[in-house]
């Protein structure tokens, strides 16, 4: 594994890992040592090494979420040394490399902390609150029938670009995890502004923002105080401008929609 670069010096690390058997039982931080970690490994590969060691010792391996390991699925939700996805800007945990750490470092690894994201086991959390918010309105309805020509709907390039930027949200939850208020505003704002900017999103524009914000509140996420930790930690760089768009969309929908309930 470490073979490709002969100059990369292997590291020995101390890990402080949150261990929790299940939702009902309270957990605690447990210390582990890992040896001969290549600086070229990703953070998750380093955890694989730890888990192999634990398996060999007959212990329960550490549960953590991961899937694509290429920065696009948003599963690898680890809170590393007090930061979402660790110290590097604009990365997921799977794209974080061990060369960002030094030999002898102690690394604290915790799950996302938010009441809306209950811990399943160890470092794995349940982010289905995000799914329910999307179900409440983060979609466009498409009618069946003859497929329309996509190029027939004119969209200015800069609008398309902004919608695309918002669409790059991978739903990882780093914004919630990093926010002092455990607020989901950045996540919700990304979807709301993406669809509000595009012609396809106009049909459900008002109900979308009303329902998504209502669901966000039901799930128990905190309110935004414009701190900006979310945008600073977001692996794909969703900006705070989207939250302003969300607030605008919400206000205009509430003021002008026909929904009296």
């Amino acid at each position, binding site marked *: 594994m470490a073979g490709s670069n002969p100059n990369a010096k292997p590291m020995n690390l101390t890990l402080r890992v949150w261990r929790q058997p299940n939702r009902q039982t309270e957990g605690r931080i447990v210390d582990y040592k890992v040896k001969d970690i290549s600086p070229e490994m990703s953070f998750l590969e380093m955890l694989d090494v730890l888990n192999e060691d634990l398996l060999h010792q007959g212990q329960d391996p550490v549960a953590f979420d991961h899937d694509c390991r290429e920065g696009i699925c948003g599963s690898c939700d680890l809170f590393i*040394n007090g930061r979402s996805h660790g110290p590097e800007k604009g990365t997921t945990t799977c794209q974080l490399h061990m060369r960002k750490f030094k030999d002898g470092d102690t690394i604290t690894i915790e799950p996302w902390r938010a009441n809306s994201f209950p811990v399943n086991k160890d470092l794995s959390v349940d982010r289905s609150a995000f799914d329910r918010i999307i179900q409440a309105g983060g979609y466009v309805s498409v009618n069946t029938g003859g497929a329309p020509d996509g190029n027939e709907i004119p969209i200015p390039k800069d609008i398309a670009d902004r919608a695309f930027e918002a669409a790059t949200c991978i739903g990882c939850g780093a914004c919630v995890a990093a926010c*002092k208020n455990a607020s989901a505003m950045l996540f919700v704002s990304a979807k709301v502004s993406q669809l509000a900017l595009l012609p396809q999103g106009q049909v459900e524009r008002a109900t979308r923002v009303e329902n998504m914000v*209502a669901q966000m*509140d039901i799930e128990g996420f*905190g309110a935004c*105080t*414009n701190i900006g930790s979310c945008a*600073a930690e977001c692996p794909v760089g969703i900006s705070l401008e989207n939250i302003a768009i969300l607030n605008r969309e919400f*206000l205009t929908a509430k003021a002008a929609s026909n929904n009296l309930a």
Partner: protein
Amino acid sequence: MNWFTKTFTSSIGRKIIMSLTGLFLCTFLVVHLIGNFQLFKNDDGVAFNVYSHFMGHNPIIRTIEWGLVLGFGFHIYEALMLTTRNKSARSHKYDQFHAEQNSEWTSRNMGILGSIILIFLLVHLYNFFWRARFGTLDPDINKNDDLYKLVVSSFHQWWYVLLYVAAQASLGYHLWHGFRSGFQTLGLNHRKYMPLIKNFGYAFAVIVSAGFASMPLYFFFFTNEKGALLSDMPAVLHQLTLAFN
């Protein structure tokens, strides 16, 4: 709940009230600060007392005063509701949490800063507002209540000056974040105008807090017990007070 109450009890709705009241309070600060600059007139407080008499008796001002009470009331109420909501969104705290690496201190401590302002506000209101409105003050040469005398004697007590300066520092930090934040909450964030709003907010925070803090400091360090500029003060200060005449 109907749509209206639903809107303003939602997390974004509460923020919007926070922001509207906060920005309204900013306009009050401007008026209050400009009026109070008359304290610097070296005239035994005559002009300041005329001004406070007007502010205390003019029916239009007295009506706007209720707006101010409501503004503070809603701002503080929503601050409480949002802060409790935000606290209960994460009951299990992190072992390591390094928000200082990704955000500004002021933005994370708006509640604490606001609470210091609130404590100051209660002392301030009791000492000046309450006693001017409901107490009996000595008359000045125009038979106006001599609020000036009360201000000057208060500003010769070290703990009072300290409280004022600390509160103004808190206000400055509160506005450093709050001004821009208020616009962002209303959805007024545009790449063309946000840099202007931000910088205006920073300047506003510094000028307003330094302006208010200058008053207790001036009387404590530069004037005698009656508010007259000490004669051994540098000439530049005399010129400054002349500028206010």
